[in-house]
């Protein structure tokens, strides 16, 4: 089927995006991005391909090859990836029903519920993470409830990290899903029902399809910030459950190994971009035609 999007006539609505106006509007954001993102990124990029020996700087691939040929680092890479994917999936599975509730609810508690959903954002990451430590630690809340022989060792596990991340990132997921769902006209659901669609088919064929842009943006956000999360994995995972963000920190700030640190940072960035691209491609097939009318 031909992609029809290009066939629409040029819009003549006011757009504020012509020449000088556009330049002026973009200038502040571009300036900040250039100074604090592009320039440092170039510096880090150059660092990742150089070493210093005998006071001179040489080009090398060894920062990357050393990292990528070490099983220890691979384990950390895969763990970071696994934790981020699981966090994204869990956030989606927990967030979707909540977003659905917000979409359908007519209750006056709806706003209270929305506030509760986003409330984790009002508490600092460190405080929230310590909260999880209180709950998960060997003498914590969960184990206090379990009988003597069934105590769990939850701290310093991948599960603990996923729990901590998911808790912080679910609001982003719910807000993304909500933004997309509120655009779905409820009469579409009534129309589907009158055509004979069961509640499941209404959800599958109409509501979910039309919420895919929200699923996509929510997943991309949660995945990207999970990949780069630092304090939660460090506090809940401990030294035995390191993630890439910690490695970057360790190389740069603890070992002052700027070149290796730069290479790891770029590996992290590349992995994130590749997965984000894959998520986008997967979702795009379903969202091609769901641009709002």
């Amino acid at each position, binding site marked *: 089927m031909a992609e029809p999007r290009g066939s629409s006539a040029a819009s003549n609505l006011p757009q504020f995006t012509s020449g000088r106006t556009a330049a002026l509007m973009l200038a502040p954001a571009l300036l900040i991005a250039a100074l604090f993102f592009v320039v440092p990124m170039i510096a880090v990029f150059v660092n990742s391909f150089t070493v210093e020996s005998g006071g001179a700087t040489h080009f090398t691939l060894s920062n990357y090859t050393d990292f990528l040929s070490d099983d220890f680092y691979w384990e950390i890479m895969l763990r970071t990836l696994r934790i981020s994917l699981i966090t994204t999936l869990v956030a989606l599975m927990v967030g979707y029903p909540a977003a659905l509730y917000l979409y359908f609810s007519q209750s006056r508690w709806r706003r209270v519920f929305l506030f509760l959903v986003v409330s984790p954002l009002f508490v600092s990451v460190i405080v929230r993470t310590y909260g999880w430590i209180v709950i998960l630690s060997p003498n914590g809340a969960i184990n206090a409830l379990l009988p003597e022989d069934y105590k769990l060792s939850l701290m310093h596990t991948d599960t603990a990290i996923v729990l901590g991340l998911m808790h912080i990132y679910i609001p982003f997921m719910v807000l993304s899903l909500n933004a997309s769902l509120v655009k779905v006209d409820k009469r579409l659901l009534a129309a589907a*029902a*009158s*055509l*004979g*669609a069961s509640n499941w088919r209404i959800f599958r064929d109409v509501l979910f399809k039309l919420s895919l842009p929200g699923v996509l943006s929510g997943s991309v956000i949660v995945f990207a910030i999970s990949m780069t999360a630092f304090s939660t994995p460090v506090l809940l995972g401990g030294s035995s459950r390191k993630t890439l963000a910690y490695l970057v920190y360790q190389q740069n700030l603890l070992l002052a190994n700027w070149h290796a640190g730069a290479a790891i940072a770029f590996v992290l960035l590349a992995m994130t971009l590749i997965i984000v691209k894959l998520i986008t491609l997967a979702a795009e097939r379903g969202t091609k035609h769901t641009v709002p009318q």
Partner: protein
Amino acid sequence: MNAYLELDRVEVSYGAVQALHPLTLSMQAGEFFCLLGPSGCGKTTTLGIVAGFTRAGGGRVLLGGQDVTMMPPQQRQMGVVFQNYALFPHMTAAQNVGYGLKLRKREAADIERRVNELLALVRLEGKGDRYPRQMSGGEQQRVAIARALAIEPRLLLLDEPLSNLDARLREEMRNELKRIQRTTGVTTIFVTHDQEEAFGAADRIAILNHGRLEQVGTPTEIYQSPRSMFVANFIGRSNALNGTLSAPGVFEVQGQRFACSRPAAGSSRSWVLFLRPEELKITRNPASTNSVRGTVVEVIYIGAIVNMRVKTDIGELLAYRLGTGGEPVAAGDAVQVGWEPGAGSLLPADAHG
């Protein structure tokens, strides 16, 4: 003949708002039925009851003799066309039309054939691959109609489907709807607040006001014999004369006596005689049994029809006549306004509305 669709004392309230007072209505198979009334009178609510989207607080809905009051919309097999069409934006026109058939697990080839038939019926051949946002309002509406017809609905329900269209397209689509309805023979309920639309399309019209049924009848019946003050005021233009029945067949307005027919029903101290502008005749000399003297205030030519406002002892009256007939009249002329004794509708003044 037994009714095809019956609403039997159906009630709906939203919290404290009583949207429908016990409403009883029936429709024959194959009828093109209009629900007409001002904004907020309960038209959409009534349609929602028939489609199953709205739950009745009391009463029953019977379809072909079967009680469907509690049946979910999925099982009712009713084609609904919403005011904004509610087309699925992520499906092409053909996919929209075919969706109901796909749910019924028809074979792909079957669906394709039927979809093409329907697109031809609504004159959208070759546009099946378009997405709703690539279509004009009129085209989207026709897709919505085709989608509703695809499931061979037991009823076609249309909620103000023409209100988003401009005047010309609106008339075109109204005729199109009539044609489609005649071709398919599907029993249709058409909701509108535009009386011209209702009169132009309907076999019968039900007039709602504040969640109550005011009158049901053919367009002619409703225009010629409004049964309530509300209907008389709501439909068309009228001259309302307030007076009393001083004797049987004698209507008295401010001391002047006019011959009138006996009221259909009711007993009241004061009455209102509704006279349509086209029932009034403007002449130089007294011509009819009933006539009053007056002075022409204004003459306006509106195409084929001339509107005349005449100031008389019993108030200002509006009269129409064809631009070609009668003696020419100008503002300031002294004239006689007359009407036949049987003309107009006599209604008790204390009736609601």
